[in-house]
């Protein structure tokens, strides 16, 4: 290769010689510069070709460097040059042609295993990486007697086509196996390493799922990293809003997130959404920004899927089985129109992250055993308007507001918001993380401002004719707030981590006796010294206050015989509710391959 460069150097010399035969003028000078630039380009092009003198190839699971030219041929050629049988120029030409031939003859793709199966074109213009993630779990729970009357407020079940409220009740002890996560990922880049794609399928069931798992599209996104200051991600993915929302399940200190982490997402419904985000490269800049616009209704969904029920008379809520709301005709059909009044709305999310020391990243725990302190603080704001969580008329519990939205609220513990009409969510989150030599400390504080479109207390009972409201809800829905702090330490660097967490959550700031407190301890053993292969055991204690008013589940309920008694009855679901306590031990095996 060195000889090839000498040959190139000789060509450069010829150019220089050419310039010396002409008197210098401005035009000539320009010509010289142009020729020099072209020759420079030619030189580098040639060097690039000559640099392909060999490559790393995988053989028996290891990478070995293989010269593209047969060593015996090269030896003979070198001897031929020394003996004067061939000239240096002939030698250089043959070497270059041989390398060119070897380059053209080799397969145009390569396949290998490195954190997933990789298939790539040799010019790196295309990469497909296929990965799988499996999480198997055994959970042993011990619950107090309060669970016999159950939870109808935070995590109720919504069943049937009408999505009626069902209290979640159980006996004291439960033993369950669960495929908590079963993921298949397709990722890579197209045309250039700066145009990336990511598709993730899930075929799992949550611990409290009511249906067997089916394959679902979790992520489908394209990510442009052409401009480090202005990366763009579009599609369906996790919203860059707060630390626990961004972090992946593959790199958690605990087997499961705290309940409060699930409740305070950007949309208030789900961690994932469909939209577009601009951000900078977090590995390049110490201050990172993320600004995104989304549908705001969770994965695989948009606002055409949500609606308010309406009678033939405009402005009159539908859904009741007889009678009518105040100021509306009493004898109209109950299942009539789906009025889409929020299809012009979008969710907006913004986040700033300051890497004050090092690059703490989003993975939990100091797996990297940071040699220097890593400190980052951040904050996010999300505005998600026009979420219809069930029309607030006097016929709570039987309205046909979109079931997907309502079920997402119930699944993540925000069911106290159900029934309060159309809501605008303004959510704030502030977080911080510190990592140093195996020690980690992480915390977040959340606040969700819930702005109801209907400002007055909703009507829960009308007169017999259904034309005048006689009883309204005893209180108004408040805001929500919560926080958590968690810490971990690697007792054996990169192998064994102990972690503890405390989480606190007030789902309705206007209600009393509704706090949710959670304590977790976890011990994680990382089999391969990375997050990819681990066994975790986690102990969790959850206290869930059942106080406060929940529309449609607390007294007073609509009790007009002709209207709603058949659906909601007169005895509220929380009639005998007691505070709930659960102690659970989770043993989990995870492999990310």
């Amino acid at each position, binding site marked *: 290769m060195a000889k090839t460069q000498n040959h190139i150097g000789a060509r450069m010399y010829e150019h220089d010689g050419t310039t010396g035969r002409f008197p210098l003028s401005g035009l000539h000078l320009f010509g010289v510069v142009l020729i020099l630039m072209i020759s420079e380009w030619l030189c580098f092009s040639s060097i690039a070709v000559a640099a392909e003198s060999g490559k790393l190839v995988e053989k028996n699971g290891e990478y070995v460097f293989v010269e593209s030219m047969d060593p015996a041929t090269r030896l003979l050629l070198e001897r031929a040059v020394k003996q004067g049988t061939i000239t240096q120029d002939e030698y250089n030409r043959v070497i270059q042609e041989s390398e060119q031939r070897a380059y053209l003859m080799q397969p145009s793709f390569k396949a290998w295993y490195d954190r997933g199966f990789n298939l790539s074109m040799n010019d790196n213009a295309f990469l497909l990486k296929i990965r799988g993630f499996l999480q198997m779990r055994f959970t042993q729970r011990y619950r107090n007697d309060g669970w016999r009357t159950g939870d109808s407020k935070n995590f109720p079940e919504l069943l049937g086509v009408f999505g009626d409220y069902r209290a979640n009740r159980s006996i004291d002890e439960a033993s369950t196996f669960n495929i908590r996560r079963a993921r298949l990922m397709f990722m890579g880049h197209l045309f250039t390493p700066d145009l990336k794609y990511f598709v993730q399928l899930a075929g799992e069931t949550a611990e409290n799922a009511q249906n067997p798992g089916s394959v679902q599209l979790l992520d489908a996104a394209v990510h442009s990293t052409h401009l480090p200051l202005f990366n763009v991600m579009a599609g369906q993915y996790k919203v860059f809003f707060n630390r626990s929302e961004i972090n992946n399940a593959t790199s958690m200190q605990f087997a499961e997130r705290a309940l409060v982490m699930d409740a305070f997402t950007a949309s208030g419904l789900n961690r994932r959404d469909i939209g577009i985000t601009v951000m900078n490269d977090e590995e390049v800049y110490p201050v990172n920004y993320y600004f995104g616009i989304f549908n705001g209704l969770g994965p695989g969904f948009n606002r055409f899927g949500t609606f308010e029920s309406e009678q033939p008379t405009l402005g009159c809520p539908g859904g009741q089985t007889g009678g009518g709301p105040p100021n509306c005709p009493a004898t109209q059909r109950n299942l009539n129109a789906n009025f889409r009044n929020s299809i012009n709305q979008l969710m907006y999310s913004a986040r700033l992250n300051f890497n004050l020391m090092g690059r703490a990243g989003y993975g939990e725990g100091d*797996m990297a055993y940071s040699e220097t302190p890593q400190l980052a603080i951040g904050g996010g704001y999300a505005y998600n308007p026009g979420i219809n969580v069930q029309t607030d008329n006097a016929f709570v519990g039987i309205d046909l507001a979109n079931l997907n939205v309502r079920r997402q609220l119930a699944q993540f513990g925000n069911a106290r918001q159900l029934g309060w009409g159309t809501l605008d969510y303004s959510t704030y989150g502030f977080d911080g993380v510190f990592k140093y030599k195996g*020690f980690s400390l992480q915390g977040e504080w959340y606040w969700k401002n819930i702005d109801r479109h209907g400002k007055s207390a909703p009507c829960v009972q009308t007169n017999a004719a259904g034309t005048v409201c006689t009883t309204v809800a005893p209180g108004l829905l408040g805001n929500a707030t919560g926080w958590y702090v968690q810490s971990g330490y690697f007792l*054996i660097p990169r192998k064994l981590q102990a972690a503890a967490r405390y989480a606190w959550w007030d789902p309705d700031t206007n209600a009393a006796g509704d706090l949710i407190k959670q304590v977790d301890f976890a011990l994680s053993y990382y089999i391969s*010294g990375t997050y990819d292969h681990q066994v975790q055991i986690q102990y969790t204690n959850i206290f869930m206050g059942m106080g406060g008013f929940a529309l449609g589940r607390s007294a007073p309920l609509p009790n007009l015989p002709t209207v709603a008694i058949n659906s909601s009855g007169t005895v509220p679901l929380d009639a005998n509710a007691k505070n709930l306590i659960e102690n659970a031990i989770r043993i989990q095996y995870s492999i990310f391959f």
Partner: protein
Amino acid sequence: MGEPIRRLMVYVLVILITGIGCARMPYTTKTVHEDFRVAVAVQKEIAPAKYTHPVQLTADQVAAILRNFSLREEQRLPLRWFAEEVPPKPVFREEELVWVSPYLVEALQKAGPEERAHFQLFAPGMNRADTRNVTAGWVAVREPYLYLTIEYFHTEIPTRHSDPYYPNNPEMPPLPKTYLLFFEPGRFLVTDEKGARAVQFQDFLKTQVSPLNP
């Protein structure tokens, strides 16, 4: 919160605090050199090492010693009983010795008795946008022995902290593997008083013909 829970929390806290200070890994104290091909640093040992640093060696001497090392990855049990033994491979290529030796000399001169000279050799990875091919390890001298340990041998190591394809997923290098090291001529590879394998490098260097005085 019940009394048993409080008690459990206290126990865990005590265990955590006790654990702090027990777990350690060697850490970098000085960076000697770093470019796209090679990085050399001085690392602090976590256990008393009592090396005889600083050491005065030339780049040629270091290259001559390292050139004669070869290795084979140690298989885990029970594979070790059945796996076919592959012949050892040279640890370094000639150009790698040219790149790394001068900086190792410098590192061995700057290192203290409780420090070692750590090196990394880089080559483009299978996916240049994500990984690089790394050979890494460390060298230390406790007269009359020279110790070489290889942590990675042509191993794919991520170049970023987070996965460029799976958003915000942390990327970790694999754990170092155990390699069986060989040295030619084998008579200079001995076991020291603590049971570690090392090269009697001064004796070996005496057998080498100086390039200045062939």
